[in-house]
């Protein structure tokens, strides 16, 4: 009952760039950048992944320094997130979990919003409509139903299957391998299939749900779950940004055209801890981590760019410099985030404030003032 390693087994494992940085082809999926300059686009992916990793590394360090309460590292999942994030159009809509910092970056969300959540300043209070990027959801799986409902709204707005690329809209629901066991996720498959809703279910199978390996959740490759619900599922090398981009692009198009949902399993690996409070040495072997280090999503793009002569050292240095800049901005920005006013919580519960809560606020304000007076 153990999973065959698809990186070796091949079948329905779509790869376009090997860990060694060689381009390969696939009969069904091609890396397609339309009229853009391919090298430019790949350099862009590289830059995106490096900057995303830097955001992640800085945030991890900030947590270690006590500036964040906790941090959910994405280390190792950059290709899955950038490949998907860069395949989206602005009017597509994303429903993330709590680890899609790379997708957030692609959507243009200021990472300080995310730090704000993990610092405990707020709960991720960004405006989802500003970047068509919904708020982080911590209850496992819940957001897959929100994505499906949103997609049902898209259908009702007539924004699917029209053939107009500026109108047709897809919705991406992120979730993890562990999440695939939740009732909500399976119900979202059912609703999306029943209504033919334009949802791409994007599963980052990073092999672990905290300490539990993927075998606890499924005895077969996860992308095959879709078979049970009557829509297509594919497994892509989640550490191959070109393949993820190609497959996501195809899935988005498939859903936008009104064919109903599609499942993409990005086969990747959580190279770090589950969160900064987790200790993965308790449950997994270091050899496994070593094995996956050889499949690093960034290293293979760099190898490709270097070998093909598509980028020189000066260019790589420039990306590093940009990363340093982002790092510095995050460190300063995080420390400068203002603590919320405790009284604000009473005003945020309802759209229409209640007398009850206004009274509770006033009572608490008076109580706090009594201390001011006492000082």
């Amino acid at each position: 009952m153990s999973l065959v390693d698809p990186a070796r087994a091949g079948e329905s494992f779509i790869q376009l760039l090997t860990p060694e940085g060689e381009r390969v082809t696939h009969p069904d999926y091609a890396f397609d950048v339309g009229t853009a300059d391919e090298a430019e686009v790949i350099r862009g992916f590289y830059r995106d992944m490096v900057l995303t990793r830097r955001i992640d590394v800085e945030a991890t360090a900030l947590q270690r320094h006590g500036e964040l309460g906790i941090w959910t590292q994405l280390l190792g999942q950059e290709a899955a997130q950038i490949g998907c994030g860069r395949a989206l159009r602005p009017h597509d809509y994303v429903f993330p979990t709590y680890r899609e910092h790379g997708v957030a970056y692609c959507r243009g969300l200021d990472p300080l919003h995310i730090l704000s959540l993990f610092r405990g300043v707020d709960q991720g209070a960004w405006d989802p409509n500003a970047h068509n990027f919904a708020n982080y959801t911590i209850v496992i799986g819940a957001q897959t139903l929100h994505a499906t409902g949103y997609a049902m709204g898209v259908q009702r707005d007539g924004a699917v299957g029209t053939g107009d690329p500026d109108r047709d809209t897809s919705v991406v629901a992120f979730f993890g391998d562990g999440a695939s066991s939740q009732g909500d996720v399976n119900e979202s498959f059912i609703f999306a299939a029943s209504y033919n809703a334009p949802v791409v279910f994007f599963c980052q199978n990073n092999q672990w749900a905290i300490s539990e390996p993927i075998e606890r959740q499924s005895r077969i490759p996860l992308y095959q779950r879709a078979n049970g619900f009557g829509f297509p599922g594919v497994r892509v090398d989640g550490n191959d940004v070109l393949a993820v981009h190609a497959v996501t692009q195809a899935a988005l198009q498939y859903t936008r055209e009104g064919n109903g949902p599609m499942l993409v399993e990005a086969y990747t690996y959580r190279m770090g801890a589950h969160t900064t409070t987790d200790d993965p040495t308790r449950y997994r072997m270091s050899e496994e981590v070593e094995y996956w280090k050889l499949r690093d999503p960034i290293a293979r793009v760099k190898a490709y760019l270097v070998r093909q002569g598509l980028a020189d050292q000066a260019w790589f240095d420039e990306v590093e410099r940009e990363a340093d800049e982002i790092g510095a901005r995050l460190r300063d920005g995080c420390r400068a985030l203002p603590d919320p006013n405790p009284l604000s919580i009473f005003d945020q519960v309802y759209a229409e404030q209640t007398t009850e809560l206004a009274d509770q606020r006033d009572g608490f304000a008076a109580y706090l003032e009594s201390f001011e007076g006492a000082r």
Partner: protein
Amino acid sequence: MSKVTLAKALNAGLRKAMDNDPKVLVMGEDVGKLGGVFRITDGLQKDFGEDRVIDSPLAESGIIGTAVGLAMRGYRPVCEIQFDGFVYPAYDQIVSQVAKLHFRTHGKVKMPMVIRIPYGGGIGAVEHHSESPEAQFAHTPGLKVVTCSNPVDGYFMIQQAIASDDPVIFLEPKRQYHADKAELDESATPLPLHASRVAKAGSEVTLIGYGPTVKTCLQAAEAAAGEGRSVEVIDLRTLSPLDLGPTFDSVRRTGRAVVVHEAHTNLGMGAEISARITEQCFYSLEAPVLRVGGFDTPYPPARIEEEYLPDLDRVLDAVDRSLAF
């Protein structure tokens, strides 16, 4: 003006809301062709189409979870939960998502959702069809919880709930659906949604009910009047937020209060109301606030539900006990 049942009044209210705002959707199990098992959505799918009156797969978490997404896309979903006891599979979506999204996003996401739940007992049903889950929702900040006791309130309150930008748990006393007819003047100006009302004035004891127990309270007041006792009856209408102004006014006059509900007594609405009355009217109280509720057992089989439910006699008994203090 015409005489209508609560069921018809709710149907008319839903229809009006759908007519007024194309973003209003109705969704749930069997709400389409069948018109719901209680026929509250009767005819709506025929008139508004399958895109606006949505038969859902059989999954309550799915209904509420997709409604969250629809609300984020700008729709105003009105979800039907078929029976009270079947709301629990959706409980997580309700308390952790529906209730919290406004707070989580500092108001950037609004949840103009109505969750309609036929609730309460007395219809001779099997298990899970007679529950009163109001306290659990009222305990959850971020939700608003209301219940109607008569057709007129049903007609207006459902429209007000749909118009509200906050999520509203809308509890419908199913036992009353087809029970009593009332004159409905659609042009009348309704009370605000979150206001309670004095259903009958009185001076010696304050009886507080809501939903299905308002009728019982009014009957008790009448019976008490026959014995020369003047009982004031409050119909709460809104359980979260609670509007206890009229109750406090009343208790300050009567000095005595009895709360009546079908839900389990332990940690039911009566507990909160008792605590608040005691806090606010301490020096006016001649007797402790008494509670007449469902017993602290699961809802019993139908052949003995009449014994379980607070009835006229148990309410009168409590009134007597209150007066005897």
